[in-house]
């Protein structure tokens, strides 16, 4: 026991030991992924090297560089070994999409403390923004036979999708933010359903969304004549967007705006009396959170090449909420971890478990009724996660930490008073 403690102590103090451990771990798992035909466990362990990296004691800059090497070189290369290259990359891409959405929801729920239960609506807005114009659907209401737009416009549509989702965020927020927190949850829940119902039925009077049939053969993006079709190509698009999102979230969190969000979350009345404009602060949280989701919606539409309203149901909104709550509301690393865990649970663990149980019952070892197959148990599992985390670990897996400001900075002199967290935000700091 004491030997183990000793080792743990050395590991915490000694950076060399840390880097050796990290490199060894990464090499072994990467080799395993590269050499084995299809091993989900090995791939998950390879992804876990990022978590290991998070707990090392290097400076942030070095961590970022190592993380980039892992994400851009090691993981794609290791996965390319076997025939299941694209299925690995599909998982990683989905992870990235959900991480970005969860980070968006984290701004609304975690930073600003507004429970939004219809978050997938913004994802849908982004997806349909690209879907409508990148198929011949838009010809139905814009004359001139201009559509589908070419795949080159995809890059602009990432921004347009984010912008449209942001607009919808404000549209939802304007009426709703005047009411108190618990009403907000129900209204956003209703809003998510409204958006889905509208997309499901907007084929008349003018056929805009093609109703329940969905939009098919959406143009894949192209960059200077290079078409993106496979998951391992989308992986890089997602990573690029994700990096921007993470950078933006980290900058926002410690900005004047981020501090106002937290102040509003802790106590609206106190925040207001310190001069924080409530409505505007909340609206910006809604808009920015929604726009992350909208951007990923565009990528999702292009990647699937087919979207219909069934991809945007309540269970999706809940999944994203579970990611944020499990990881830790308001904690960026926590939310990234939570989103990855839930995505992998959803895509890999549950399906593998179902296959395994099916095999067992085929061989006649145990009999598992179809009703209990793990892939159908999402709601149960997510519900349990929500209850258990709420009761036993309300701060999530990695609790949010507030950045500490040295005492002399706060009390230093009159010219530094703007560093006090609850300072009023001025118009120029709002990113709109």
């Amino acid at each position, binding site marked *: 026991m004491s030997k183990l403690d000793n080792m743990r102590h050395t590991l915490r103090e000694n950076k060399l030991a840390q880097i050796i451990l990290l490199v060894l771990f990464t090499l072994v798992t990467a080799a395993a992924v590269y050499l084995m035909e299809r091993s989900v466990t090995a791939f998950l362990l390879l992804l876990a090297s990022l978590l290991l990296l998070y707990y090392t004691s290097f400076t942030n800059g070095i961590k970022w560089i190592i993380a980039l090497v892992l994400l851009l070189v090691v993981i794609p290369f290791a996965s390319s070994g076997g025939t299941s290259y694209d299925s690995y990359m599909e998982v990683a891409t989905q992870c990235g999409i959900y991480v970005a959405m969860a980070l968006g929801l984290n701004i609304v729920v975690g930073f600003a403390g507004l429970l939004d239960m219809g978050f997938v609506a913004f994802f849908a807005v982004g997806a349909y923004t690209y879907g409508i114009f990148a198929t011949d659907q838009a010809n139905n209401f814009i004359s001139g036979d201009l559509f589908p737009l070419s795949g080159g416009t995809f890059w602009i549509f990432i921004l347009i999708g984010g912008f449209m989702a942001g607009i919808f965020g404000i549209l939802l927020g304007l009426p709703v933010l005047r009411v108190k927190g618990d009403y907000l949850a129900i209204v956003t829940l209703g809003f998510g359903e409204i958006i889905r*119902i509208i997309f499901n039925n907007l084929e008349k009077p003018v056929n805009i969304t093609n109703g329940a049939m969905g939009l098919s053969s959406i143009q894949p993006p192209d960059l200077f004549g290079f078409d993106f079709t496979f998951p391992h190509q989308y992986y890089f698009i997602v990573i690029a967007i994700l990096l921007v999102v993470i950078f933006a979230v980290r900058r926002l969190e410690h900005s004047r705006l981020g501090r106002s969000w937290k102040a509003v979350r802790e106590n609206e009345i106190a925040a207001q009396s310190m001069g924080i404009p409530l409505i505007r602060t909340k609206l910006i949280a809604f808009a920015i959170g929604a726009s992350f989701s909208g951007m990923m919606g565009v990528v999702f539409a292009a990647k699937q090449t087919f979207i219909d309203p069934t991809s945007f149901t309540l269970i999706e909104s809940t999944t994203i*909420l579970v990611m944020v709550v499990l990881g830790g509301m308001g904690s960026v690393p926590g939310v990234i971890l939570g989103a990855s865990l839930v995505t992998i649970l959803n895509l890999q663990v549950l399906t593998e478990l179902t296959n395994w149980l099916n095999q067992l019952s085929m061989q006649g070892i145990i009999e598992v009724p179809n009703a209990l197959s793990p892939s159908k148990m999402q709601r149960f599992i997510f519900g349990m996660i929500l209850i258990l985390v709420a009761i036993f670990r309300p701060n999530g897996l990695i609790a949010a930490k507030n950045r500490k400001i040295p005492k002399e900075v706060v009390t230093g002199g009159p010219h530094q008073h703007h560093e006090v967290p609850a300072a009023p935000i001025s118009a120029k700091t709002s990113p709109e």
Partner: protein
Amino acid sequence: MFASILQTLPQVLIDGLALGAIYAVVALGYTMVYGILELINFAHGEIFMTGAFAGTSVLLLFQSFGWLGNLPAWVSYVLIIFIAMMVTGALGVGIERVAYRPLRKAPKLISLISAFGVSFVLQDLVRFIAELKTGNYIISVPQLFDGRFTLGFSSITAMFGNATVKTNTIFIFIVAIVLMIGLDIFVNRTKWGGAMRAVAQDRETASLMSINVNKVILLTFFIGSALGGSTGVLFAQQYGTIDPYIGFILGLKAFTAAVLGGIGNIRGAMFGGIVIGVLEMFASANLGIMTGGNFGAEYKDVFAFAILIVVLIFKPEGLFGKAVKEKV
């Protein structure tokens, strides 16, 4: 256009009142829990759904024992409602004990998340059981009263069409009215009702007046959930098929009804339920006619949520609620 709307109006009113009575009783559960804990019990829609399933399984059990033929239909109906009320009441108490009580002092956001989790767990548990027993989670419900009769509105004036009324609809009205009057008397006239109102006003002071606050909260959950469960049975009998996901949308609409009447206000919830039910039926019958076929009955849910949003903007305290000033 008006002529055809008038033609269907009697039928729309009858159906709307039946639906509205169901919303009203479910809304009571939301309003009671909110009044006492200031917590939206998200799981309430699922409790309603569990009531529908519990009642139906008791009914199927009766059927397999061959008791249905021996008892008069209304006796077995009342018996089934009573059993469903006991089951869902106990369920509500259990939920309060496990998922809400540990969080009573926690931030609002945390208890909302827990409540949301409970509703998902319940949906899936009911699905397991239904699917294990029958192989399909959508259950069609045997009808106790399958008679129907026609009300001759056209004999009053030719503008109206006739309305067909299910016998079950009459039963819904009777049960809903009995439950609502019973609750009203209980809350306003009895000792326990007084304790309930005291806890809703001020929990701390009530506990100083030797009221057992925990017991009162449990009682509130029991009554609210039992009301929800009883409507589940009524709903299953009226519409014939149930599945584990009916509670979600219905819960949202009942909540809208509670907000419309002023949340925390019991008589307001009854009124709100009737209004929402009638408006929804009116919309689903006439939206297509009024917009020239462009927007049909599939928008009726949008309509209900739009009401919720409009009420929250212009009169957040509801029609009968009192505006509460927030204390610092």
